C-alpha cells in the first residue's frame, strides 16, 4: 500500500526542489544519554537491595515461607477481608446518603451532614475504635422501657464486641470521607444533565440512577480504589481491641516464638497481595463505567496494574 503511494507521488516530486537535494541524508533522533545513565544507577541500587534482601539472615525467609500458609494466618487473612468488605459497604452506603443530604436544599439535612463529616473526619479512627470498644463505661446497658415494662435489656459489652467496635471505628470515618468523594462526583456532572432529565419528566431518583450516578462513577471510582486499599490496611488498627485480623494473628504468633520480623513480612506479603487484587478490581470497574468517554481506550491491564500498585503513571 505505502509503496504504491510513493511511486504515485514520485513523478510529481521530481520536478520540484526536492530533486536537487542529495538523495539520502540520515535522520538522527535526539539522543538521551541521561536516561541511560540514570537507568544504570537505579539498576545498581536495585541489585544492591536484592542482595541485602537475600543475604540478611534476620529476614529468615525459611520462617516466612513456613508461616505464609499457616491456618492461623489464613484465618487472619479471612477476617481482614471480611472486615474490609463490611466496612466498605457501611462507608459507601452511609457516605452516599450523607453526600445526598449535603446537596439537599433542606438546611437541617445539609447542616447535620456537614456536622457528621466534621466530627468523623476530624477524629482519628484509632481513637474512635477504642471509644466504641469502651462504650460500656458510658452506657452499661441498652434498655427499652415503656410504662414500667422493660421490653429488652442488653449489656453493652454483649453488643460492642471487638468486631462491632472495629466496624464502627473504621466504617464511620470512612463514610465521612466517602461522602465527599460522592459529592465531588455528583458535582462533576454537568448541570445540563439535570436540566435535560427534568425537562423529560424523570423523577429525581430516576435522574440520579440513570443519568447522574453513572456519570459520577467515573470520578468516584479512582478515589474509591484508594479508600478500599486504605480500609484494608486500616483494619490492622483493630488489633488494639484484640480482633483476630491478620496483624493481630501474626503478633500473637511472634509473641510466643519471637520471630517478629519474618512474621511481619508474612503479614506484609498478604497485605500486598490483597491490595493488588483490589487494584485489578478497580481496573475492571473503570472499564465498565468508561462508556461513551473519549478516554475509554483500553489501557493494557498490566501497565494499569503497575501504575496502581506503584503509584506511578506509565506512558505507552
Amino acid at each position, binding site marked *: 500500500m505505502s509503496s504504491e503511494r510513493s511511486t504515485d507521488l514520485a513523478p510529481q516530486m521530481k520536478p520540484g526542489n526536492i530533486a536537487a537535494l542529495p538523495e539520502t541524508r540520515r535522520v538522527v533522533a535526539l539522543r538521551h544519554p541521561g536516561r541511560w545513565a540514570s537507568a544504570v544507577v537505579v539498576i545498581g541500587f536495585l541489585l544492591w537491595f536484592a542482595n541485602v534482601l537475600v543475604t540478611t539472615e534476620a529476614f529468615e525467609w525459611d520462617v516466612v515461607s513456613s508461616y505464609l500458609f499457616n491456618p492461623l494466618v489464613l484465618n487472619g487473612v479471612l477476617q481482614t477481608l471480611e472486615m474490609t468488605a463490611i466496612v466498605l459497604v457501611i462507608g459507601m452506603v452511609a457516605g452516599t446518603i450523607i453526600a445526598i443530604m449535603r446537596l439537599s436544599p433542606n438546611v437541617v439535612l445539609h447542616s447535620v451532614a456537614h456536622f457528621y463529616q466534621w466530627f468523623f473526619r476530624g477524629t482519628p479512627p484509632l481513637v474512635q475504635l477504642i471509644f466504641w470498644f469502651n462504650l460500656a463505661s458510658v452506657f452499661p446497658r441498652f434498655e427499652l422501657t415503656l410504662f414500667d415494662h422493660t421490653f429488652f435489656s442488653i449489656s453493652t459489652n454483649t453488643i460492642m464486641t471487638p468486631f462491632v467496635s472495629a466496624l464502627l471505628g473504621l466504617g464511620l470515618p470512612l463514610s465521612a470521607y466517602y461522602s465527599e468523594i460522592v459529592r465531588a462526583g455528583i458535582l462533576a456532572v454537568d448541570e445540563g444533565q439535570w436540566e435535560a432529565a427534568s425537562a423529560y*419528566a*424523570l423523577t429525581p431518583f430516576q435522574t440520579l440512577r*440513570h443519568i447522574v450516578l453513572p456519570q459520577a462513577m467515573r470520578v468516584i471510582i479512582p478515589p474509591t480504589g484508594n479508600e478500599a486499599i486504605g480500609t484494608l490496611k486500616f483494619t490492622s488498627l483493630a488489633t488494639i481491641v484484640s480482633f483476630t485480623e491478620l496483624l493481630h494473628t501474626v503478633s500473637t504468633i511472634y509473641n510466643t516464638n519471637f520471630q517478629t520480623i519474618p512474621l511481619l513480612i508474612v503479614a506484609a506479603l498478604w497485605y500486598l497481595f490483597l491490595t493488588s487484587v483490589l487494584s485489578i478490581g478497580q481496573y475492571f470497574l473503570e472499564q465498565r463505567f468508561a462508556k*461513551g*468517554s473519549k478516554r475509554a481506550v483500553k489501557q493494557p491491564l498490566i501497565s494499569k496494574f503497575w501504575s496502581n500498585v506503584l503509584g506511578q503513571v506509565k506512558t505507552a
Partner: protein
Amino acid sequence: MTVMVSADRIRKSYGRLPVLNGVSLEIKAGEVCCLLGPSGAGKSTFLRCVNHLESVDGGQLIVDGEIIGYRERAGKLFEMRGQDIARQRASIGMVFQHFNLYPHMTAEQNVSLAQVAVHKKGKAEARFRSRELLERVGLGSKAGKYPRQLSGGEQQRVAIARALAISPKLILFDEPTSALDPELVGEVLETIRAVAAEGITMMVVTHEIGFAREVADRVVFMDGGVVVEQGPPSQVLDAPAHPRTRAFLERVL
C-alpha cells in the same frame, strides 16, 4: 383552532434583576412560533418558563388548557409538587442549545430513556421507535454511537429525535443552532423544518432570521423582557412597525 400556549403577563426576575416584565403571548395548536430579539431580551428565560424549568414570579402560563407548574386554589397559585410538574412536562419536548445528550448512553438509548422510564413503554417497543426516529432525522446508521462520536449537528439531530420520542404536543427549541459550527447549522435547520411540516406546535428561540422567515407562522420580537411586536414573518420581518424591531433587524441582517 385551539390555543396551545397562552402566556398572560409573565413576570420573572433573578434577584433584583428583572428579566420578564409581563410577557403575554398566544400560540395556536400546530403553529410554529419563532422568538427573536437581542441577547438579554428574556427569550430563553420565557421559553424555560413554558415547561417550568424556571418558576415565575407573576402571571400565568397555560399549555393545552392546564396552568403550568401551579395549581389555582382560593384565588392563589400554589406551586405544584415535582411529580405533578413531571406529568405536565411529559408531553412537552425540549431541545437545548448545548444538546444535553446523556454522554454515557448511545444515540438510541438517549432517545429511548424517557419512553421507558416516564412513558412506561416496553424496551423492545421503545427501541423500535427510537430506531425509526433516528432514521427520520437521517441518523439510522449512527444509532449505536455515543454522543462524543457524533458531530455537533448529529448530536442536535439526536436531541430532536429524543424530543419527538415522547410524542409531544409542543416542542421547545432553545437556540438549537447557536452552539454549532456554521457548516452544521443547515442540517439541523433542515431537520427542524421537517418536524414543523408535520404540524407539531413549536416554539423556537433563534438568531436565524432566514429560518424564521421561511418556517415560522408567527414571529415574536422580544426586548427588555416584553413582547415588542408579533405577527406573520412578512409583517414583522419585512415591514416592522416598531423602531426597536427595525433597529434589531438592521443590525443582524
